[in-house]
């Protein structure tokens, strides 16, 4: 066993973003003591601290920890055999960038919703780390949770609807990325059930998603470790009788505090698999995990401790797991495109109005070229995303296209976020303008796994 030095008071590492190599010197020690005093209740009792420093107790406050939501009882129904499936979209074999009429109608509705309802609610939802109830209710009216669900199962999909899904994700994210994730997370679970569920899984869970009281639900793939690979999750499933026992820590869980049903990635017999976990199952714990952005989605962690689930829990196989990982990444690409477009649409009038040296800053090439490059890279991101989606819809392998779209959207999306703030200068850094939020949201692209699905 390697020699482990005793951790002394001089050792500062392992917390507060410090590496293990950080050591305190005497002055640092004094400062640390002062800081502890400053954090104590004493000054509060003395009434020194301003009330504005208090944080709202919701998901925003670190350390919020609870059992999974009480949740409804999903009555078992159906048989163990194959579920209903939608067919792949039939291609005409022509290059085409025009959505179908149905897709366009859907996008128009979602665009209006994004502009009228989502965008105005975005700033406050970011602060409270919650999506407003009325917004979520309205999202049910336009059918968001059942977009990817087969018609036969109470949804609206008559064929594989990855393109429609991508267009909807893009349009919603133009309103706000965090709220888009919140509004789409139940749909991710419903889509997975429709695409991959057995008759029993579909009959047991899907009716609730097609009804009036749609449960909050989350597709859970990420884990809080560096270099996380969803194809090799640390979360483990072991067999017990006919069922399974799950253990592990998952992250990036949208609306975790309210979610009644999770689809969780965990390793079983050496291969990654998906499991349906009801929130009320014993051993399920939700821990708040407020992050840099995507805050309106109410991100949490999901702690699984000897969580026992029945045979019905296993969703699909390792190939299905891989497909879900891919198509979730594709959905994130669409969110990046929508957010990138929001940045472009915001900075364009701004740089034409903002004056410097006696003329609009848009008249300077250094500014104008930045805007041009946002437009160029954004369109590239969009085309890669559409291409991948059209392959998914047509039942073609899209591993390559999704990987490339994700790579491009992660890199160029972040650049667009950076440039958006930069073009507004100091004004971009303050919350009076939404670009700082888009900057934080766009950092999620490329590292997020799960939560959304097309």
């Amino acid at each position, binding site marked *: 066993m390697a020699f482990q030095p005793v951790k002394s008071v001089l050792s500062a590492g392992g917390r507060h973003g410090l590496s293990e190599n950080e050591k305190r010197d005497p002055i640092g020690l004094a400062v640390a003591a002062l800081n502890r005093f400053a954090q104590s209740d004493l000054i509060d009792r003395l009434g020194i601290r301003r009330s504005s420093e208090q944080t709202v107790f919701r998901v925003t406050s670190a350390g919020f920890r609870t059992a999974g939501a009480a949740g409804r009882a999903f009555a078992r129904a159906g048989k163990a055999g194959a579920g209903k499936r939608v067919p792949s979209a039939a*291609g*005409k*074999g022509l290059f085409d960038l025009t959505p179908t009429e149905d897709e366009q109608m859907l996008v128009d509705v979602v665009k209006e919703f994004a502009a009228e309802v989502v965008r105005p609610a975005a700033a406050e939802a970011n602060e409270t780390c919650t999506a407003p109830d009325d917004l979520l209710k309205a999202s049910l009216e336009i059918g968001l949770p059942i977009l990817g669900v087969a018609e036969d199962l109470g949804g609206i999909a008559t064929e594989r609807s990855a393109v429609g899904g991508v267009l909807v994700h893009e349009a919603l994210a133009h309103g706000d990325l965090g709220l888009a994730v919140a509004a789409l997370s139940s749909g991710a679970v419903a889509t997975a059930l429709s695409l991959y569920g057995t008759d029993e899984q579909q009959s047991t869970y899907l009716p609730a998603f097609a009804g009036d009281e749609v449960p909050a639900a989350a597709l859970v793939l990420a884990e809080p470790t560096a270099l996380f*690979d969803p194809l090799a999750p640390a979360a483990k499933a072991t067999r017990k009788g006919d069922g399974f026992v799950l253990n592990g820590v998952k992250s990036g869980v949208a609306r975790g505090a309210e979610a009644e049903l999770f689809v969780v990635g965990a390793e079983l017999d050496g291969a990654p698999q998906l499991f349906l976990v009801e929130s009320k199952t014993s051993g399920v714990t939700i821990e708040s995990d407020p992050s840099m952005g995507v805050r309106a989605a109410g991100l949490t962690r999901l702690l699984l401790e000897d969580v026992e689930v029945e045979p019905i829990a296993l969703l699909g196989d390792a190939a299905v797991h891989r497909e879900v990982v891919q198509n979730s990444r594709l959905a994130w690409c669409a969110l990046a495109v929508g957010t990138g477009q929001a940045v472009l649409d915001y900075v364009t009038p701004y740089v034409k109005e903002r004056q410097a040296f006696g003329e609009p800053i848009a008249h300077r*090439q250094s500014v*104008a*070229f930045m805007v041009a490059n946002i437009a*160029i890279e954004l369109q*590239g991101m969009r085309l890669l995303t559409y291409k991948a989606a059209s392959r998914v819809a047509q039942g073609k392998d899209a591993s390559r296209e999704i*990987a490339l779209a994700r790579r491009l959207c992660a890199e160029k999306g972040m650049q667009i976020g950076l440039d958006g703030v930069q073009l507004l200068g100091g004004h971009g850094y303050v919350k009076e303008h939404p670009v700082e939020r888009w900057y934080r949201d766009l950092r999620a692209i490329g590292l997020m796994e799960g939560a959304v699905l097309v």
Partner: protein
Amino acid sequence: MINLETPKKVRPLVDQAHQVAMNMLRPISRKYDAAEHEYPKELDMLAAMIDGLSESGASGGAGAAGVRRDESAEEKAGNKNGANLASVLSIMEMCWGDVGLLLSMPRQGLGNSAIASVANDEQLERFKGTWAAMAITEPGIGSDSANLSTTARKDGDEYVLNGEKIFVTSGERADSVVVWATLDKSMGRAAIKSFVVQKGTPGMNVERLEHKLGIRASDTAVITFTDCRVPAANLLGSPEIDTKQGFAGAMATFDNTRPLVAAMAVGCARASLDLTRDILEQAGIAIDYDRPALSQSAAAATFLQLEADWEAAYLLTLQSAWMADNRKPNSMEASMAKAKAGRMGTDVTLRCVELCGTLGYSEAELLEKWGRDSKILDIFEGTQQIQQLIVARRILGLSSAELK
């Protein structure tokens, strides 16, 4: 219905172009890089073959003639995949073979694109089969082509040209040169017209050929015009100086040729990626599309990034051609494609050289050549900066006086 796959009906043409590139261009690629200014005689046979295919209709309208927008054609409803898409796809394949040789292809010059874009029907018929080079740039002007100083003076049934043109691709080999000249410099860009000057016209002289960084198979000429008389009927388009229409007529050529140059960069970069992937695999580096890039080797992560950038340029190019096929104005998208493909082309080819080390740097492989060839594609037919300017003006709704 959104679909970004290569259209079925163009696939045979693309496959054919790929075979030509592989079996005809690649074997002589290094030869004419080394023997600059030597005429690639192998191309004559290839050109004859392509002409034959065109006549049989098997080429699907590929090549320079494909950029013409047929205004008289009846508007058919619905989505079209036509000559523009076919052209960019086949040019990508040919430039996967060799950019310099593609540029030297008889009867496929940029001047042919200009003729196809702005000539009237009579001229189109008369200049059928000619190999036309394009002469715009002068020693004193490059990107600001509206400011050119070669003059054309009307004298009876002829125009008299005077001036010096540089960077004329295939200027010595071509049958004719499309020359940009001003009828009246004081009238600005509206007075700029293009003229077809046949080789051997008295007063036209090829002064020298340039020695270049890359595309060395393609000759680049300096041509002078001294009281060079051309028939008035060789002025392409309208002889009137229409200040309202301004430069638009001449510049329309670029909306058609920029997607082609973007396609060249896409093809060249694809060659680099294909070979680099092969070399990396031999070195034990496999590219995994599903595992996070950061969990793979730095070489694999770099490759994924390059391929993603490549794909963006590729799709932007197809978009601009598809828009032209469907008669949608594509000036901005053509510039987007050219800007993205131009910078992607150099970035990808140069980083592929780096990824392959001294093997990539050596003349033993073609990677170093592609690293040199690609640079011109971010310069001619409008530099990176000009493309950004065009895109910026469109996005911001600013005039050239506001955004200089």
